[in-house]
């Protein structure tokens, strides 16, 4: 980018003028700013700007550059759009983005000084309550990075509770979540029993239950699973708990819970998930929102920040971060997790969106998303060579195609239709999965979108 011809003293983010700098250096007793870096060995001190990097640029120049880059993407809002597989595109009311940009939320720090952070703290308390009710758990934390890292944290927590180190992962668990857990397990020494997704109308709950034994710390089941099927959590919970293992339910699409029963109600001991589909948006995969709920008796083994209710010196209700003796800044190497953040602003967006919806609105949103899925599945199944895999689904389902799904996805994109996710992108190298396409819908899906997908797919498969 072309540099602007102006001095630092007018750099728009730096309030010090050269005169200020001179006065301050005089107070300090230093000849220049470089002298303040005297502790840096001379050999490591750079004499000028780093070669090969441009100089400062005006706001308008930066905006122009970024707008040009943005225009190089085909955006979801431009075309018929059917991608899911762990990230969902839903309507986010304009109110949400307006409110999260209030500077008092956007530019605040972690609420370590509760007297001047009650806004953030009350939001977190409300968020925890919303998540707990959505998941059907006793309690929930103030959020983690995302669903995949929350999933590993749940496995680690189950290990602490049961003092066992073998986790059984359902084949329906999102492959990126499996991969994240495998990375960690490789270094912690935990054993993970995994299976690849099977292409069948119902998830194979029997095989999963058969893998549970007296060494098992936890069983992980995605609900709905990566193919959109709805496993029988009640049965799996009973089987796990009979062996002294915990059931961890993983929810990557919380909107689905507007239509089907909450996992905690069905017996899950820990429920984790990805909160992105409420309030946060697609954002090419991040930042997202890790949701984490569990039974109250496990609260002291939970990872991450927790906000609790208390009173102030005048007896007024107040909120404060609590049980921090679990956390790294107090416990250091004995902490329950190394996490030092929550996904605060995403939690706020989620909470505002869910407040606007309420339980009734969430049910309507889930129903609309589901009805679009039924409509899309029916239309797709009518195409020659296309079959719907699932016996049950909410707003995401799998279809089999007569050609490799990855090729079909590219061919659809060339026709300006974002038609779904090829399962082979998530689980490569499995011959029986190459022809499977995951298709998701939401309340944003229209009749025209479904017609365009079917027309383009018919053309591609012809």
């Amino acid at each position, binding site marked *: 980018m072309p540099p602007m011809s102006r001095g630092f003293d007018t750099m728009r983010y730096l309030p010090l003028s050269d005169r200020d700098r001179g006065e301050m250096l005089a107070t300090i007793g230093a000849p220049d700013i470089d002298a303040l870096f005297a502790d840096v060995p001379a050999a490591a001190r750079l004499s000028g700007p780093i070669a090969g990097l441009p100089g400062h640029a005006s706001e308008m120049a930066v905006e122009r550059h970024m707008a040009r880059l943005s225009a190089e993407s085909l955006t979801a809002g431009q075309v018929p759009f059917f991608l899911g597989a762990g990230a969902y595109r839903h309507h986010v009311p304009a109110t949400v983005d307006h409110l999260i940009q209030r500077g008092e939320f956007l530019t605040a720090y972690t609420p370590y000084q509760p007297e001047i952070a009650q806004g953030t703290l009350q939001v977190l308390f409300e968020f925890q309550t919303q998540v707990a009710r959505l998941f059907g758990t006793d309690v929930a934390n103030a959020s983690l990075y995302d669903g995949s890292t929350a999933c590993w944290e749940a496995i680690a927590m189950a290990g602490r509770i049961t003092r066992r180190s073998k986790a059984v992962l359902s084949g329906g668990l999102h492959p990126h979540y499996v991969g994240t857990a495998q990375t960690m397990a490789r270094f912690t020494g935990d054993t993970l029993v995994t299976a690849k997704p099977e292409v069948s109308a119902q998830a194979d709950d029997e095989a999963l239950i058969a893998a549970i034994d007296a060494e098992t710390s936890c069983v992980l089941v995605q609900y709905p699973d990566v193919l959109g099927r709805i496993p029988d959590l009640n049965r799996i919970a009973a089987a796990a708990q009979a062996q002294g293992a915990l059931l961890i339910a993983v929810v990557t699409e919380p909107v689905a819970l507007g239509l*089907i029963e909450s996992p905690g109600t069905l017996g899950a001991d820990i429920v984790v998930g990805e909160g992105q589909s409420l309030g946060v948006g697609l954002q090419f995969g991040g930042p997202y929102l890790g949701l984490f709920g569990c039974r109250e008796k496990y609260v002291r083994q939970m990872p991450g920040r927790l906000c609790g209710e208390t009173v102030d010196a005048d007896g007024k209700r107040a909120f404060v971060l609590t049980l921090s003796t679990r956390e*790294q800044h107090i416990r250091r190497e004995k902490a329950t997790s190394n996490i030092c953040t929550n996904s605060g602003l995403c939690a706020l967006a989620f909470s505002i969106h869910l407040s606007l919806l309420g339980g009734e609105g969430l049910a309507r949103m889930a129903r609309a998303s589901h009805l679009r899925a039924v409509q899309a599945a029916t239309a797709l199944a009518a195409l020659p060579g296309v079959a719907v895999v699932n016996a049950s689904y909410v707003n995401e389902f799998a279809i089999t195609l007569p050609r490799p799904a990855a090729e079909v996805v590219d061919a659809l994109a060339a026709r300006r239709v974002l038609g779904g996710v090829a399962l082979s992108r998530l689980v490569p190298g499995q011959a029986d999965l190459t022809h499977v396409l995951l298709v998701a819908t939401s309340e944003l899906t229209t009749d025209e979108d479904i017609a365009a997908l079917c027309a383009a797919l018919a053309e591609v498969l012809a």
Partner: protein
Amino acid sequence: MTVLNPAGWRPELGDRIPAALEAPETVTGNRALHLEEPLLFEVGRMDHCGVDFDDVPGSPLAGLALRAAPVDLPGLSEPEAVRHYTRLSRQNYAIDLGPFPLGSCTMKHNPRLDEKVARMPGFADVHPLQPVGTVQGALKVIDELADWLVKLTGMAAVAMTPKAGAHGELCGLLAIRAALDARGDKREVILVPESAHGTNPATAAFAGFQVEAIPATDDGRVDTAALIGKLGPHVAGVMITNPNTCGLFERDLKTIADAVHAAGGYVYCDGANFNAIVGRVRPGDLGVDAMHINLHKTFSTPHGGGGPGAGPVVLSDALAPFAPLPVVKPGSDGMLRLVEEADSAAEAPEAFGRMCAFHGQMGMFSRALAYILSHGADGLAQASGDAVLNANYVLRRLEHVLHAPFAAAGPCMHEALFSDDGFADGFATLDLAKGLIDEGYHPMTVYFPLVVHGAMLVEPTETESKAGLDQFIMAMESLGARAKAGDPALKSAPHFAPRRRVDETRAARKPRLVWSA
């Protein structure tokens, strides 16, 4: 002294804090612009909804087991929601309101251009699993930012996916583990200085290492001799924060790095304080093998009330092959590619795996890139210079009022460290911090680093003006004098915040973490 705020500051009061006014109680509990706000569950109703949906024809799939009742969540109409959250927001302090001198946290101005850019649809409204040909704009942001991070640090490569600083630490340590595994070396110990952030030992433990502490010297730096004395065939590496948490540059880092490398270990640098040296010093020149960069600190993506952050990790030649998936690479056709699981065996055979779903914190990458492009290489060096200048100005203006344990040793970097030495009996750092709230400031970092008693770590950042610093210094002078004199009004501060001191013990004794009627 100049009266900086003639409308609000009354010089005739001198060091005396005005007694709380005898104000009448109000019926509502509100006090003009101080508005109390009930909980969502107290104002919301099950039959309220602020979102409408278009009708969709059809009926649910036959056989789908529907939930018995909607989730028990109250709703708000749109005006109620706007008011609920706007009222709550006003109970927060924020960088938009005033100085936020939290040491080690880097609370500086968050440019609004960055917010605008992050919402551009080519970055915000793209799905992480779209065909790569349709997400070139997003991939170019990642690639351009990666190029900047590599060049600013003088390193070989960068892993972009870690979601925050602690996640970046984990990435660096897993890369070290993977590199050791690759040569069949079973080293189990990570050396961590006593002054380190709590995340350092927690991360080392989370990654399956044992932690051994390294003492600090009297001048606030790592004890180089003690560290080198601990090296051996069992030591996988060291984690060093530079500039360190006392706000000082670790002069011996290169010497330490050479010794660690000679002993077969690796050097992890906690880059939380990279903002002090960016554009002036490259960690790669100091022998660092891995360092996370908190985009929310050095490159000013907003803290958002506690996240989300982003923690890309720059890697040396020795560790670069082990970087996690996915990796953005140029393709033969001029397009950018994503190396994921399908291609990893061929193109990233030593990658240690995946740290999270998808590709990292895109929303933070676009903000950070806009910030970096705005500054340029020259502006970043000016920003770090101004940050260090502001901190030294605070240090020199306050060292006669507050005990500054390392002031005599020379300049500080981007933050000035003080202790509670000299306070009246029964008065502690916390009291001064709470007094600062009444003066209209967010307190500095308190009781950290642990190596200084009653530590107060002040990080003004480069985005505070001299006039703003002068007023802050005036407030600190007053508070320091009151803490030394034992002013009882300080002991019960804050007096003017939305809440007085809160009962943390009560919150922890019988935790109430969710609302119930």
